């Protein structure tokens, strides 16, 4: 019997009906009368100087209403930090990756706009390009940007303890090279925008943005408007996963500018091929990992040298490189740590954020390396992990890593034990090892991810609760549900705090004109941070209502209970009234008071220490133990994944249905990036920008997934919650790689592990 009335119940999502009926409107579904269509012209070169752009023929095409180029943006540029504002709406002097946008056209329909782009004449001077980050770092490599040396976009050198001494005194030291794939978000909804620049000085945009408030700041800066006059309205969003939809695009800026020029609304929708070929991707990283252990297999030190392909611009790169190092001390004790990270400019599409940001690369390397060491030492994979795993701190205590990442709950040991007890691991030796051509293997991983992320100078997060006179409630927050289910979680939090039913809460869609600021959906922050803001706002409303009920009943406020829409007295349960009655009393009380509650998240005060890597990067940390059963066809190298068991410590799952869906979805996305997904590049050109050849898993490819819920009730999250959306994308790759090793005897260190790579490793010289 749960202590909670609403929290933890298996309610369907609050936006369910709209989505299953097709009523939910996404950015591309919006139209306005008189609307024009925007199309972008993009560069055929990955690296070239722009000498001249002649749009005269395009402008003469009937139906074309305007053409813009880089110069029309007045030299404005943007970036994640002041020092890295190197990206421009449309390329001005140079293009730095294949198909970077160089011009935008507005026309009466999309056909005409497309035709017009063919009439724009661009004179390029092709420049030598560089496409491998390790090559790009060398002296003499073509310079992608002139404001840095050796194409180094970001560089961090962190040092904790004494790794050299620790390695010298270790029982075993391994050095291995790992590589993660060129992966992308793969959402089904291509980015889209409908923009209207009102001549009285007001911009309104309906855009698929996971973080509308980043976008409104970019627009305000670009068009020199006050924030109060930039309105980003958030439609339903068809998936985000932390990439392009968290940032602004060429198409966004062009749509607004063309609207300004033409006086009409302008719509921009990307094609999927355009999205796959040009948008931000997960960085592909090379991790040189060095790990030492003592005679018991306890880690003595880790040194990571990471080289990331940053592509043509900085974007969120500084954060990507920070995240790749800051929590290497989780989930296993790490007494000495050195981190040398390089993000390198190349003439490839931009490397940026994606679910599991930064951690997927280094945790993958560290997990596999630990398994390699376990194999060398003859140690059981569960045993070596339990020897190293961090204990769950006792209540009121904090565990701190060597670089001062602090946590109050840590369920990794319990997760590993539960995963080990589960039949998939426990009975693995009883299951057939070989069936015909298929060799089966089982693998295990133990990983962590952070929640409640904060970013530099962009922490504020607030919520407003408004009580309507009929007892229903509006929740108004800037937090974005990009499909992960945060709207449902926030409504449940509000309902729980207020004492009403979930159905009584209605959450407003984000609209920067009306909803309070929120950083957006990334770093698994919404449940924790916007959740805290929601809790506070709800408590404020509840306090007011409780006082009114107390007055009504001449009782003490502490005696008033509100639960599931009913108000009563603890000391006299016969005294009760429906919530709606209390609401009416409150709203029609004659005082003129309007019952509103506001709250903001008080977390996120700490500054991210990018330079030294000291301190927390999140509010709390989830822990995942993941087992995988994988079959490898020893003739063809094809891989079948039959089962996953995922034991997750997410503090407490507030809304189980969406949370489970997130864990499952993250695991499958992680699986995709382990065995199928990779952009194949040829001198800057993406050879497979289609779903046919950028191979995301389909229904026939996914394993049976079993979830085990580990509850640690974290004090820093609403109702004990920690993040639940990214842990499994970190845990899946090492579990699968480990299972493939169990099946084939081979450690694969480069992702994705394609059938061809398996065959090549099994039969290096093409033997039968």
């Amino acid at each position, binding site marked *: 019997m749960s202590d909670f009335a609403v929290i933890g119940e298996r309610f369907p*999502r609050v936006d369910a009906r709209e*989505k299953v009926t097709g009523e939910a409107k996404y950015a*591309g579904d919006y139209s306005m009368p008189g609307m024009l269509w925007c199309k972008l012209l993009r560069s055929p070169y990955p690296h070239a100087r722009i000498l001249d752009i002649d749009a005269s023929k395009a402008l003469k095409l009937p139906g074309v209403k305007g053409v813009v180029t880089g110069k029309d943006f007045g030299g404005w540029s943007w970036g994640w930090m002041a020092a890295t504002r190197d990206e421009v709406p449309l390329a001005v002097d140079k293009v730095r990756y294949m198909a970077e946008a160089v011009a935008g056209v507005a026309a009466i329909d999309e056909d005409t706009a497309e035709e017009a782009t063919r009439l724009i004449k661009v004179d390029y001077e092709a420049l030598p390009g560089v496409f491998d980050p390790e090559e790009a770092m060398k002296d003499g490599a073509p310079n992608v940007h002139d404001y840095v040396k050796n194409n180094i976009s970001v560089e961090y050198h962190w040092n904790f303890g004494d790794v050299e001494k620790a390695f010298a005194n270790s029982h075993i030291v391994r050095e291995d090279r790992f590589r993660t794939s060129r992966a992308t978000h793969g959402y089904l909804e291509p980015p889209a925008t409908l923009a209207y620049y009102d001549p009285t000085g007001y911009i309104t945009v309906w855009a698929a943005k996971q973080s509308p408030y980043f976008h409104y700041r970019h627009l305000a800066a670009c068009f020199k408007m006050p924030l109060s006059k930039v309105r980003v309205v958030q439609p339903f969003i068809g*998936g985000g996963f932390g990439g392009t939809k968290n940032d602004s695009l060429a198409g966004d800026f062009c749509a607004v500018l063309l609207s300004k020029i033409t006086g009409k609304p302008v719509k921009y929708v990307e094609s999927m091929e355009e999205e796959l070929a040009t948008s931000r991707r997960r960085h592909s990283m090379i991790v040189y990992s060095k790990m030492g252990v003592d005679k018991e297999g306890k880690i003595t030190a880790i040194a990571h040298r990471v080289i990331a392909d940053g592509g043509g611009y900085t974007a969120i790169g500084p954060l990507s490189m920070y995240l790749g190092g800051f929590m290497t001390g989780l989930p296993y004790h790490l007494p000495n740590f050195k981190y040398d990270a390089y993000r390198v400019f190349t003439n490839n599409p931009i490397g940026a954020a994606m679910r599991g940001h930064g951690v997927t690369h280094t945790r993958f390397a560290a997990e596999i390396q630990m398994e390699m060491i376990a194999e060398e030492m003859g140690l059981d994979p569960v045993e070596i992990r339990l020897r190293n795993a961090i204990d769950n701190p006792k209540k009121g205590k904090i565990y701190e890593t060597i670089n001062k990442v602090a946590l109050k709950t840590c369920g990794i040991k319990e997760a590993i034990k539960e995963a080990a007890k589960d039949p998939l691991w426990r009975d693995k030796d009883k299951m057939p090892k070989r069936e015909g051509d298929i060799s089966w293997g089982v693998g295990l991983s133990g990983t962590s991810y952070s929640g409640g992320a904060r970013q530099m100078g962009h922490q504020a997060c607030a919520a407003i609760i408004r009580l309507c006179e009929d007892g229903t409630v509006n929740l108004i927050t800037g937090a974005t549900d990009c499909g*992960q289910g945060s709207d449902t979680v926030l409504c449940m939090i509000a309902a729980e705090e207020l004492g009403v039913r979930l159905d009584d809460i209605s959450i407003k869609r984000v609209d920067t004109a009306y909803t309070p600021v929120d950083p957006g959906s990334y770093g698994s922050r919404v449940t924790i941070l916007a959740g805290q803001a929601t809790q506070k706002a709800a408590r404020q409303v509840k306090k007011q209502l409780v006082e009114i009920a107390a007055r009504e009943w001449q009782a003490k406020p502490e005696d008033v209970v509100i639960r599931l829409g009913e108000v009563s007295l603890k000391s006299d349960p016969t005294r009760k009234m429906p919530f709606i009655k209390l609401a009416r009393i409150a709203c029609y009380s004659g005082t003129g008071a309007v019952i509103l509650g506001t709250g903001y998240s008080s977390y996120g005060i700490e500054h991210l220490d990018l330079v030294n890597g000291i301190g927390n990067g999140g509010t709390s940390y989830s822990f995942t133990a993941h087992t995988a059963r994988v079959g490898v066809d020893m003739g063809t190298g094809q891989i079948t994944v039959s089962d996953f068991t995922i034991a997750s410590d997410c503090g407490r799952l507030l809304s189980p249905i969406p949370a489970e869906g997130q864990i499952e979805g993250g695991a499958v*996305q992680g699986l995709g990036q382990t065995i199928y997904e990779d952009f194949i590049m040829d001198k800057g050109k993406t050879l497979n920008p289609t*779903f046919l050849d950028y191979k995301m898993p389909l229904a026939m490819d996914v394993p049976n997934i079993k979830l085990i819920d580990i509850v640690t009730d974290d004090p820093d999250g609403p109702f004990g919650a920690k993040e639940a959306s990214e842990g499994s994308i970190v845990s899946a790759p090492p579990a699968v790689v480990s299972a493939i090793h169990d099946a084939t005897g081979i450690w694969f260190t480069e992702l994705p592990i394609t059938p061809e790579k398996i065959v090549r490793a099994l039969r290096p010289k093409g033997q039968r």
Partner: protein
Amino acid sequence: MKAIRFSVNGKHYDITVPPHRTLLEVIREELGLTGTKEGCGVGECGACTVIMDGKTVNSCLVLAAEADGKEITTIEGLAQGDRLHPIQQAFIDHGGFQCGFCTPGMIMSAKALLDANPRPSEEEIRKGISGNFCRCTGYTKIIESIKAAAKNMEAKP
């Protein structure tokens, strides 16, 4: 220009469109039924799946002109007023969607599957939706939803 007469969700339409318009574009932009989505536009993702003369098709690959004389069902045609189709209800109850973008196409594929095969095995379900990508759910709850829908539809035909 091409004159087309077809029925969508039981309603008859008589429209004139340029020959190079696809059925997807006409459904969304002429008829205003935006429930059917454009994902990849080249018949790979399944987001644009509709049922045409009883069979699922990628509407982005069908020229509007080719739909002349056809009966088309889109996601908007499943619910009867307030009453959701059992498949829609099952997706709600079992969380068979997250961002919802693939959902209309996925539900149409599920409908066609269950209409042809009311008692599919799990393997048949997976094959039946093998032309529909979902990036959010990992398919687990979609498969559960379809199983539940099959059960409910058998119980209450």
